[in-house]
C-alpha cells in the first residue's frame, strides 16, 4: 500500500512538472517575444524606445537571459511560491493570485459541491423515476444543460433574476447574494456533465446480472438501487471528479468576467488581454495543480472504496471504459 501511495504521489508531481513545462514552452518558445507582445498590448511602438531602454526593460523582467536560464529561474521560483513579476501591473504575480484566490476558491468549491449534489440527484431520479415520461425528460435534461454556453446562461440569469425580478445583484463580489448566480451558472454545466456520466454508469450497472440476483432475493426496489446499484455505479464515475473540478475552475474565467467578480478567472482574462505572460503561466500552473491534487485524492481514496483493488495488490483503478466493457 505504501508503494501504491508513493507511486501515485510521484506520478502526480511528474505530471504537474510536465504541465508547467509544457505551458512554459507554449508561452515562451512559440515565435513571439513577450516584451513585444507586452508593448503592443500597452499601445507602445517598440521603435519609439531606444535600444538601451528596451534592453533595460528586458533585463528587468529577465527576458535577456537564455531560454534555459529563464526556465530554470521560473521553475525554482515556482517551487518557492514565486511566479515572477507581472508585466502589466509590475507587482509580484504571487501577490496578485493570493489576493484573488479566496474568492475564486469559494466560487469553485461551492459550485463543485452544488454540482455534485444536483448532478447525483438528477442522475438518480433520471434512472429510478417510475413515471416513464418524467424519466425520459430527466434523462434528456443533462444534454440540454451541457449545450448552453455558460455566458448565455449567465446573461439569461442576469436578465431574468436581476433586471426583471431584482432578486440578485447582476455584478459584484460582495455578500452571499452575489455568489448565487455565478454558482448556479457554473453548476448548470458541471452538474449536467456529471449527470450524463452517472446516468450512463447507472444504466450499465442495472444491466449487470448481480442486480438480478439481488432482485431475486426479494429485496425492494429502493434496497436494490441503494445497496447494490448506487455504489457500483458511482465508483467508475469518481474518475471524473478531477474533470469536474477542472471545469469549475475554468468556468470561473467566463463567469467572473460576466458577473464582474474579482478573482483568478478574471485575472486570467485580463492577463491574456494584456498578454501578461507570467500571470498566464501562474494561473495555468495553479489550475493544473488543483486538477492534479483532486485526481491524486481520488486515486488514493479509490482502493478504500473498491474492494477489488484493495484486496488485490498492485492494480490501478480501472478506467471507466474498462468497467463499461464488462
Amino acid at each position: 500500500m505504501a508503494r501504491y501511495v508513493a507511486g501515485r504521489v510521484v506520478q502526480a508531481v511528474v505530471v504537474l512538472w510536465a504541465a508547467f513545462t509544457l505551458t512554459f514552452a507554449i508561452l515562451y518558445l512559440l515565435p513571439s517575444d513577450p516584451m513585444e507582445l507586452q508593448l503592443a498590448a500597452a499601445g507602445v511602438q517598440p521603435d519609439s524606445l531606444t535600444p538601451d531602454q528596451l534592453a533595460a526593460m528586458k533585463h528587468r523582467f529577465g527576458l535577456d537571459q537564455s531560454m534555459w536560464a529563464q526556465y530554470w529561474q521560473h521553475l525554482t521560483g515556482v517551487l518557492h511560491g514565486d511566479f515572477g513579476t507581472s508585466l502589466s501591473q509590475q507587482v509580484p504575480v504571487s501577490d496578485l493570485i493570493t489576493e484573488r484566490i479566496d474568492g475564486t476558491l469559494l466560487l469553485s468549491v461551492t459550485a463543485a459541491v452544488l454540482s455534485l449534489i444536483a448532478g447525483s440527484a438528477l442522475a438518480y431520479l433520471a434512472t429510478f423515476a417510475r413515471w416513464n415520461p418524467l424519466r425520459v425528460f430527466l434523462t434528456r435534461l443533462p444534454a440540454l444543460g451541457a449545450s448552453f454556453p455558460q455566458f448565455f446562461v449567465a446573461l439569461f440569469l442576469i436578465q431574468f433574476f436581476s433586471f426583471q425580478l431584482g432578486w440578485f445583484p447582476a455584478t459584484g463580489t460582495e455578500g452571499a447574494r452575489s455568489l448565487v448566480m455565478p454558482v448556479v451558472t457554473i453548476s448548470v454545466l458541471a452538474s449536467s456533465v456529471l449527470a450524463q456520466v452517472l446516468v450512463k454508469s447507472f444504466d450499465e450497472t442495472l444491466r449487470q446480472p448481480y442486480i438480478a440476483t439481488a432482485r431475486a432475493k426479494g429485496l425492494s426496489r429502493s434496497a436494490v438501487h441503494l445497496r447494490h446499484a448506487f455504489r457500483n455505479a458511482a465508483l467508475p464515475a469518481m474518475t471524473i471528479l478531477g474533470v469536474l473540478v477542472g471545469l469549475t475552475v475554468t468556468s470561473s474565467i467566463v463567469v467572473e468576467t460576466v458577473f464582474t467578480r474579482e478573482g483568478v478567472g478574471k485575472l486570467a482574462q485580463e492577463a491574456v488581454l494584456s498578454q501578461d505572460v507570467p500571470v498566464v503561466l501562474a494561473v495555468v500552473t495553479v489550475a493544473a495543480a488543483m486538477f492534479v491534487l483532486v485526481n491524486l485524492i481520488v486515486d488514493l481514496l479509490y482502493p478504500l472504496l473498491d474492494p477489488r483493488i484493495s484486496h488485490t495488490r498492485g492494480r490501478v483503478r480501472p478506467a471507466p471504459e474498462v468497467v463499461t466493457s464488462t
Partner: protein
Amino acid sequence: MTLVDIKGLDVGYVRHRRVRPAVAGLDLTVEAGEVVAIVGESGSGKTTTANAIIGLLPPNGRITAGSAVVDGVETAGASERTLRRLRGSVVGLIPQDPMVGLNPTQRVGHQIAEAVRLRGITGAAVPAEVLRFLEQAGVPDPELRARQYPHELSGGLRQRALIAIALAGRPKLIIADEPTSALDVTVQKRILDHLGGLVREQGISLVIITHDLAVAADRADRIVVMRDGRLVEQGDPATIVSAPRESYTRRLTAATPRLAPRFDVRDQAVPEPILTLTEVSKTFAGNDLRRGARGFNALDKVSVTVPRGRTHALVGESGCGKTTTLRIALGLETATSGSVVLDGDEIVGRSWNQLRPLRRKAQLVHQDPFATLDPKFTVGQSITEPLVSFRIGNRRSRQERARELLDQVQLPTSYLDRLPTELSGGQRQRVAIARALALRPDLIMLDEPVSALDVLVQEQILQLLTDLQAALGLSYLFVSHDLAVVAEVAHTVSVMSHGKVVEHGPVAEVFTSPRSPWTRELIDAIPGRRVVDAA
C-alpha cells in the same frame, strides 16, 4: 400439490414498438418436490419462461396472454409488490454465470445475510444462519468465505455462494438457469450433484433450464422440451430419450453427443506427422500486463503430434494450456523453449515474415462465431481475404474460388454479399471454415469451433468437418473442453491438465480405458449416462 401452474402463457418483448413473441401458448406445471428440466436451444423461450415464473422479465418483456400461478398467486399482470413477496421466499434463483452473479463490492456473507434478514431474522441469529447456508451449499471454511469478496472466490465457490443465497430465502422452488454453461465439467457435476441432493433432502422443487438434454436426463423427474417459444413434448427422461414422440425431440436426442468414439485407429499404421510439438514450454512473465492474471497458464514440456489426414484433439479444463498450445503451434504465440515442426519446417524462432509462407499450410478457426468475422466485410470479402493477402489470382478467379468454397461448406452462393450480422451462428462458423480453406491448407487448427453453437447446429458443423477431411485429406488439431464432441471427430487425443499432457493415444483407447486419474474424472463428469444407457 401444484406449485407452478402455467396456462396458455404468451410472453413477448417490445422492440421498435412491436411485440416479438418469445413464449406462445405455454402450459406447464411444477409439483411440490419435483425436479423439472426445461430443455431447448437458444431462442426457444426457456429462460423467458423462468423469468416469468419469478417475475423478473426485462423492462421490455410483457405477458400478453394466459396465466402463471405460482404458489397460489397469479403473477401475470401482478404488481411489483406481489411479485416481490414471491421472490426469494417462494422462488429462488441461481443465475446463469456465477462469475458476474454476485455484487463485486459486497462481502459474500453480507449478500447472503440480506436474504436471511428478509425472512425477519435479526441480530445475532443472522451470522449463524449465513454460515449454515454456506455449509449447506457445500462451501468449505464458511467463516473465511463469508468475510471475502466475490473476486477472491473461484467460479465454483461463487456458484455455491449463489446457491446459498437461493437457499437462504427458504424457497419452495429453485430455478437454476443454465447452471452448467459457465463452469468446467468436473466442477459442474459436483455442484449439480450437490444441488440435486439438497432439494430432494429439503423437499424443494427444482426447475433446471438447460440447452443440454444429457444434463436434463441425468437429473430431472420430468423433461420439458421447448422450441420457438412453444412446448414440444414433455415426459419422464426415459421416455423422452428412448421413445420421443416428436421428430424434433428425436433429432435433439440423436444430436446429443455421447462418449462413443467414432474412429478406431488402434490397429492402423500411424501416418507421417504433419505437425510435431516437442517439449514445448511457455512461461508468461509475471509483469506481462496482458497475461499477468493468467500467469499460471504456462506450458510444461508439452509434446503433441498430429498425423497427416487425421484429427488430433487437445482436451482439458479451462486454464489447462490447450489453447496456448494451439496458438504456439500456429506461431501466434512464441514458445519459451521446445520445437514446433510444421510439415518439416521448424517454426519456433521464426519472425512473422519468415512464418508467412507457412501460413498457406496451416489455418485457424476460432471459437466465437460472432467475433470471428469482420462485421464490415461481406462473406465474399472475408473468404477471399487470404487470397488477397497472398496475391493469389485476380478478382474474377478469387470470386470463382469463393463460390467454390461456399459450396464446400454448404452455403448458397447468394450469401457472398451478406454481412455477418445477417447470418446465424452456425452459418458464420461455416464462413470461417471456408476462409480457413481458401489457401488450400493441409492442416486446420480448430479452437473450440462448436462450443458456442446449439446442439443441432453443432452436429451439422462436426459432420461438415468430417466430410471436408474425407474429401480434401485435411488434418485437424482440434481443441475442445467437451469429451463427447472430441469422441465424434477425433482419431487421437492428448488430455491436458495444468500445462502438461497427462495422457495421449487413440481416442478409442483413451476414452474406454483411461489410465490417468485426470482423464477418468473428465469422463465421469460427462452428463448423459441415462441417454447412453437408454440408447
